[in-house]
């Protein structure tokens, strides 16, 4: 069931009304059943895969807590193998096999191992990572093992964030299932407002940009450099609005029912450096990698070459997490390289910044900093969006010619896209730099506030793409 469908709206209303009418001790059951229904609306059979990891991690959690010494580690390893194993089978098996075939082909051999004809379960990487964070936290002693099987299942399956995050931590989410969330109309309205903004980002901006981006990136041969350049810039906004739009709807949906999910985006389009970007983009995944991979490897408290190595490993794995394709791995590699390069050149950049007195005119230098970061991130996303590495290289080559005129199909797609981007940038700029002033969304006057949200809904109806399909991050 897609968030951007009318089915979801009906589902959401029914579940929310039931949620507040039944006793709070039974709410976990309602949420669990509705989450099962939500997930099964995609491919019903895949609920069994989810069920398998839930059972393994639930049992592992209890045994990790009970066991002593090395046995605790064994149970953790069993849980991690089960989760990563499922990921490997469904997400990486064919990719590994494909590369193995390529290798054998180099020696003139053919690959006898068959390919699997399976669909990737929706949101697999998200709920697997959330499940792993539970057993790791139990192992570390930061979280008590959950004895209530239903509540543990709900932790993995909570429908607002089941298929595309935010990837929650047990310390934040599990306890909320036991709390009585009393009806609070302010919270409900606050949640609805977050949802409206999420729908705006998805329907008005992301799906509109998607039409242009898909047209360009799916027919690389037929496009000129300028069209591909515009499509690349559009893709940066598309993926942000698509994913943060999903996160907003998820956070808003949970908020309506009294739950607080973690913030996943902090206006990444205004990041001043690539390092700063990763503190604002997909925060729940960045912090997951930081807590469970980067720090255990030693983080920055190791020798300098090892530090670089740690950063590169984290970003390469992050790329692989996104998809079983070399394009994602290269994307991860480029972003890892940006960070390493930033550290290597830190001394020289500090000297240069002192020379140009950047501290005296911080606002003056803000625009070039934001622009350079945006261009660097957009460049890496060519690999993220391209279907193959060959396509990505062709795109870069064509863009660098700066030739041709921008493709315009006459349907006003560029105008609509620019309108959406301008609206987004204006709202986010205000939130980033002028928080609390010129506010419409939180205006003290009830009617002004309400008019703003009515206007947003009108804009969705007027400019929204209602046939846009699913969210980009569902495939991960």
């Amino acid at each position, binding site marked *: 069931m897609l968030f951007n469908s*009318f089915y979801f709206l009906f589902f959401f209303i029914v579940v929310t009304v039931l949620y507040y009418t039944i006793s709070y001790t039974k709410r976990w059951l309602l949420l669990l059943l509705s989450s099962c229904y939500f997930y099964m609306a995609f491919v019903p059979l895949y609920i069994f895969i989810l069920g398998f990891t839930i059972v393994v991690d639930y049992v592992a959690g209890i045994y990790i807590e009970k066991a002593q010494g090395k046995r605790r580690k064994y149970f953790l390893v069993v849980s991690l193998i089960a989760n990563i194993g499922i990921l490997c089978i469904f997400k990486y098996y064919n990719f590994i096999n494909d590369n193995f075939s390529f290798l054998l082909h180099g020696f003139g051999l053919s690959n006898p191992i068959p390919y699997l004809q399976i669909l990737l379960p929706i949101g697999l990487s998200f709920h697997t990572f959330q499940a792993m964070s539970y057993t790791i936290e139990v192992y570390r002693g930061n979280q008590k093992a959950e004895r209530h099987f239903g509540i543990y299942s709900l932790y993995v399956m909570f429908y607002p964030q089941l298929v595309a995050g935010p990837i929650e931590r047990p310390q934040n989410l599990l306890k909320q299932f036991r709390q009585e969330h009393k*009806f*609070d*109309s*302010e919270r*409900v*309205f606050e949640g609805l407002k977050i949802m409206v903004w999420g729908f705006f980002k998805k329907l008005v901006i992301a799906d509109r940009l998607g039409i242009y981006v898909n047209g360009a990136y799916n027919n690389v041969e037929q496009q000129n450099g300028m069209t591909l350049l515009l499509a690349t810039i559009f893709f940066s906004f598309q993926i942000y609005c698509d994913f943060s739009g999903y996160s907003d709807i998820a956070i808003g949906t949970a908020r309506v029912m009294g739950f607080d999910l973690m913030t996943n985006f902090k206006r990444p389009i205004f990041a001043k450096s690539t390092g700063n970007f990763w503190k604002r983009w997909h925060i729940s995944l960045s912090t997951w990698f930081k807590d469970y991979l980067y720090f255990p490897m030693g983080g920055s408290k190791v020798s300098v070459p090892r530090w670089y190595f740690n950063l590169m490993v984290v970003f390469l794995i992050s790329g692989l997490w996104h998809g079983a394709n070399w394009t994602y791995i290269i994307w991860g590699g480029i972003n890892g390289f940006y960070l390493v390069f930033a550290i290597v050149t830190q001394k020289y950049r500090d000297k240069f910044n002192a020379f140009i007195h950047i501290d005296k005119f911080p606002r003056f230098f803000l625009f070039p900093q934001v622009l350079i970061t945006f261009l660097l991130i957009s460049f890496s996303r060519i690999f993220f969006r391209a279907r193959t590495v060959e396509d990505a290289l062709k795109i870069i080559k064509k863009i660098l010619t700066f030739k041709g005129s921008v493709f315009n199909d006459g*349907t*006003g797609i560029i*105008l*609509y896209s620019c309108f959406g981007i301008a609206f987004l940038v204006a709202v986010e700029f205000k939130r980033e730099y002028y928080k609390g002033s010129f506010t419409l969304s939180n205006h003290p006057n*009830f*009617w002004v506030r*309400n*008019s703003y*949200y*009515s*206007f947003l*809904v*009108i804009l969705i*109806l*007027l*400019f*929204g*793409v*209602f*046939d846009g399909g699913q969210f980009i991050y569902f495939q991960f």
Partner: protein
Amino acid sequence: MATSFKKILTQKGYWYLIFKILAFLILFFILDFILGGFLGKLYFKQTSGWEYRTKYSIEDTRADILIFGASRAQQQYNPFFFEERLKQTCYNVGRDGEPFFYYYAIFKGILKRYTPKMIILDIENGVFRAEQTSYDRISVLLPFYKNHPEMRSVIKLKGPFEKYKLQSKVYPYNSMLFKILIGNAEFNKKRSIDINGYVPLSRALNEPTRSVNISQKYDLDANKLNLYQSFINECLKANIKLYIVCSPYYINLIGSDTSMTIAKNVAKSNSIQFFDFSKDDFFLKNPNLFDDTVHVNIEGAKIFSNKLIDSIILNSAYKN
């Protein structure tokens, strides 16, 4: 009264939420009503552009001969020659990229006002192919939902929630704002010539033909097939002379297309004349008559329109 109103505003219970939602809905519907009404006025006041042609086809044309189809109708049939040689008024209601749903809905809208004497229906390969985009494209008909009940059955095919979305006055004009504004300016008239709905193309190809095998199987859309049959039935019922035509390609088509085979069989079983120019040798040997491989240019349209008129005259003479 004022005290109890203030009390509601400061509460945090269900009543407060209901009050807020009601206030939101009132504001929303007022804004929707004003903006939707304004857009509706602008939409129906257009004087050029694609939306104008759709509106003109449904609400204004009274031509004796109507030409239906997608871009291959719009850009290949010049009404001037039909009027000159058949001594009847002619309008080309074809619209670029539109599927069979569009032709049928326009036909229903026209039939409600008057009965044309002749209809030429351009059919292309793959016309009955099942594809989601065909349903998405029904959106161009949304502005007519309210005042054209005869078109509603087609518009509702867009999706199960369409009739609910159409409670909004703004939604019918979704993604049309800029087109409507341009349609009210003189810009379109300067940009493209429109001769009774016909839009001429000017480039000339200079390349050899390529071969394409069109025998591959694909899923058929039952709705499109049903509407095709209904189109024929209603023409027969209204005593409209119907000619179904497949216009020329500059592609060496190998095999036969599933949709085209069905279209021919249905036409034959209803005794409707079907003219197939898709493998016409004359056009295949003259790339200079094409703008691209599937659309003839202005010169090609002149030759093709006259060839078709010859066939129609011959067919009428034979029948008489």
